[in-house]
């Protein structure tokens, strides 16, 4: 549905916020017309704007909102949400700060979905969708989910923890109308694959099934029967336990698939089986996304060639392909928009991308060997430049490398000025331009000056305050900034806080930013979702001051065991209408 930027005004025309009660409708129910119009609004931003117009509009909006998006589960409480929005059918909740992905947040920090689910069970019996990211989810919570919502359809768990395959059993057993079960990047207690066999024999509504993150073997017969029954299945991502010949049988059952995650791509196949697999793939005319390919050996890559022409997203980030075999494969993928690879493909492989994928918009290059202190293989600045030359539509990059130059980055952004997401990780902390030995300031200066649409930036390498002066001065659309081992003084962080009007998320680690920097953002933090600062030079006293002066911010500090009493080793600041957390564990100090 299109969002209507100019919704028709109701007969009680919106007036300024000073209008008296008598000119506004006293009824708690919205005007029919306004309600109908507002029900077309899907964007949260639009809905927020609408709700601020006047009381009538606020009411109309809250009665017509069905999708709830909460970017920080602690910014609001289940009670507040339940009171304001009576008709929610879809909830997205995000929990822990992003640096928890890198083990910077201890276990049992929080973001448990349980109390939310208890509330939802009470007030949203018609809940259909739940999407969680970086939340803790227990088996008990999954049990509630499975049994309290008869119409429940879609469950998506990304980077979540705390549950086991027992919880999945509950979901499979009880959710009669399930269309989506999507588990990503999730490290759970995988007792066995028996959960998959819990889908009833007459159950056939799945459209999305992703269990690639799970390790244990599922009952293949049960899976095959399930796939046959689910005629609307469009996304199937299996785990490593599924072999090539099993995959072939699944593809025969589901040639309509649009997204496929294969299992292990390494098996001794008989010649006949090879041909079967090849034709199974070529029969999948709707395939747009391909992932998995664990342990793929180059011998079997050709079975994919027929399916490659229609691919728009190829995720090879679990497959350690080398440049030649990768180059051969990528030549068959002219329609790629998104590509994820391991750096084993090296610069040569990226050159092949540049020449084969003119429509490429997103590239992510992950390190196969991120802790290799000696060889530093992988990709260099040359590969990145090569892609930028061939792919002018590139706007999203995540690039892990060991060396970079200012000149290369300048060339890259000249070739691709439309970057919205520029995430460069030079894996040696504080590494300068390896040719000139200068800081990488000019590189990121070029990025922010040229890429006016930049929304997300991750910086790395040796950086002085100059980088942050550039960012503050030019990155006017920047919403998310990640900084590590960079900067020279408080001035750096201050420039960013003062200069980036759209900044929502700022995450900093191991930088020489201290109290003055922290406190310079006093008024800014309420306009942001959150600030994370770890291993910087911030003291508890400064955090206390921040907490005192800004009561609508939650200021949380975690200390490392060996630091002295005054240091605030990890600081997490976020706006909240719910007040301080009530579930903070002992190691989280709320100031």
């Amino acid at each position, binding site marked *: 549905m299109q969002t209507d930027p100019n919704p028709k005004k109701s007969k009680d025309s919106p007036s300024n916020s000073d209008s008296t009660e008598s000119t506004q409708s006293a009824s708690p129910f919205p005007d029919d017309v306004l309600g109908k119009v507002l029900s077309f609004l899907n964007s949260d931003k639009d809905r927020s704007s609408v709700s601020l117009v006047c009381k009538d509009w606020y009411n109309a909006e809250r009665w017509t909102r069905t999708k709830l998006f909460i970017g920080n589960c602690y910014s609001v409480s289940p009670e507040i949400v339940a009171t304001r929005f009576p008709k929610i059918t879809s909830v997205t909740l995000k929990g822990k700060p992003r*640096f928890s*992905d*890198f*083990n*910077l*947040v*201890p*276990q*049992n920090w929080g973001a448990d979905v349980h109390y939310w689910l208890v509330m939802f069970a009470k007030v949203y019996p018609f809940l259909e969708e739940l999407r969680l990211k970086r939340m803790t989810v227990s088996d008990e919570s999954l049990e509630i989910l499975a049994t309290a919502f008869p119409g429940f359809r879609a469950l998506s768990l990304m*980077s979540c923890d705390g549950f086991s395959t027992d919880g999945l059993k509950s979901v499979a057993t009880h959710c009669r109308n399930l269309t989506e079960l999507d588990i990503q*990047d*999730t*490290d759970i207690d995988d007792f066995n694959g028996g959960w998959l066999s819990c889908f009833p024999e007459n159950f056939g509504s799945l459209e999305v099934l992703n269990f690639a*993150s799970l390790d244990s073997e599922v009952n293949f017969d049960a899976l095959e029967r399930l796939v046959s029954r689910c005629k609307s299945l469009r996304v199937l991502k299996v785990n490593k336990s599924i072999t090539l010949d099993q995959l072939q049988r699944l593809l025969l059952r589901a040639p309509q698939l649009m997204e496929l995650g294969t299992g292990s791509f390494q098996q001794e196949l008989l010649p006949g089986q090879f041909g079967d697999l090849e034709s199974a793939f070529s029969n999948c005319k709707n395939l747009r996304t391909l992932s998995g390919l664990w*342990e793929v050996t180059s011998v079997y890559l050709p079975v994919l060639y027929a399916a490659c022409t229609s691919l728009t997203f190829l995720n090879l*980030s*679990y497959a*350690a392909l*080398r440049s030649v075999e990768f180059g051969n494969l990528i030549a068959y993928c002219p329609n790629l928009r998104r590509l994820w690879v*391991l750096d084993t493909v090296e610069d040569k492989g990226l050159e092949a991308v540049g020449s084969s994928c003119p429509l490429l918009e997103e590239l992510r290059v*992950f*390190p*196969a*060997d*991120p*802790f*290799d*202190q000696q*060889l530093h*293989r992988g990709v260099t600045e040359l590969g990145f430049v090569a892609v930028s030359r061939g792919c002018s539509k590139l706007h999203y990059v995540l690039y*892990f490398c060991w060396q970079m130059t200012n000149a290369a980055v300048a060339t890259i952004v000249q070739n691709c000025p439309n970057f919205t997401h520029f995430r460069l*990780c030079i*894996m*040696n*902390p504080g590494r300068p331009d390896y040719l000139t030995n200068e800081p990488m300031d000019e590189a990121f200066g070029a990025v922010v000056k040229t890429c006016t649409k930049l929304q997300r930036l991750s910086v790395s390498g040796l950086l002085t305050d100059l980088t942050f002066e550039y960012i503050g001065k030019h990155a006017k659309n920047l919403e998310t900034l*990640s900084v*590590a081992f960079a900067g020279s003084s408080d001035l750096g962080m201050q420039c960013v806080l003062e200069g980036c009007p759209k900044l929502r998320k700022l995450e900093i*680690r*191991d930088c020489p930013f201290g109290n003055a920097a922290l406190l310079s953002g006093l008024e800014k933090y309420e306009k942001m979702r959150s600030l994370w600062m770890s*291993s910087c030079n911030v003291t508890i006293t400064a955090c206390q001051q921040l907490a005192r002066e800004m009561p609508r911010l939650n200021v949380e500090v975690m200390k*490392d*065991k*060996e630091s002295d009493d005054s240091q605030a*080793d990890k600081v997490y600041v976020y706006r909240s209408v719910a007040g301080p957390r009530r579930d903070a564990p002992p190691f989280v100090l709320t100031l």
Partner: protein
Amino acid sequence: MEEMELQLKLALSSNLDEGFDLNDHNEEQEYDRLMKKKRCFDETFEEIKNVQVPRTLPLLDHIDLCEEEDGVVGWPPINSWRKKICHHYHHNSRRGCTTPTNYVTVKNGCGGGSRSNSMYVKVKMEGVGIARKVDLSRHHSYQTLIDTLMAMFANEKVQGYKLAYQDKEGDWLLAGDMPWG
């Protein structure tokens, strides 16, 4: 708490006979360059091969120190799911080392940057699926280490094993040549 993960590997002498170089698990060119600088495993164990001890299988310890620079937690910024894959990838197809360090295995709520005193070493025996872990910091001599390893692999035939390892420079050394420490 940090764990420094080292990886030990046990290989069969028959592999030695074929000029098996522990490092060369694949045919990658780049490794050849580096391997030529290292004393080939064969040379090191010449004397052992010539000893007429039936079924004597050297215990090969392929230790590759995988300590991060400055013991940095959470760097490079790769999530634990992907780290598992890196680990798996190396385990199967590369030289069998370069295990990611501390934070992959630290699930004890620490997350902080402080060092611990433990030095965990993963021991893998060729042909045996399950690796064992031993904490080097608990041992003060090669003998106690060997005894512990023997006990851990009690199910397998470990008689007559010798301990060998590859140091940071890539040289093969027999345990006991250098003093413990």
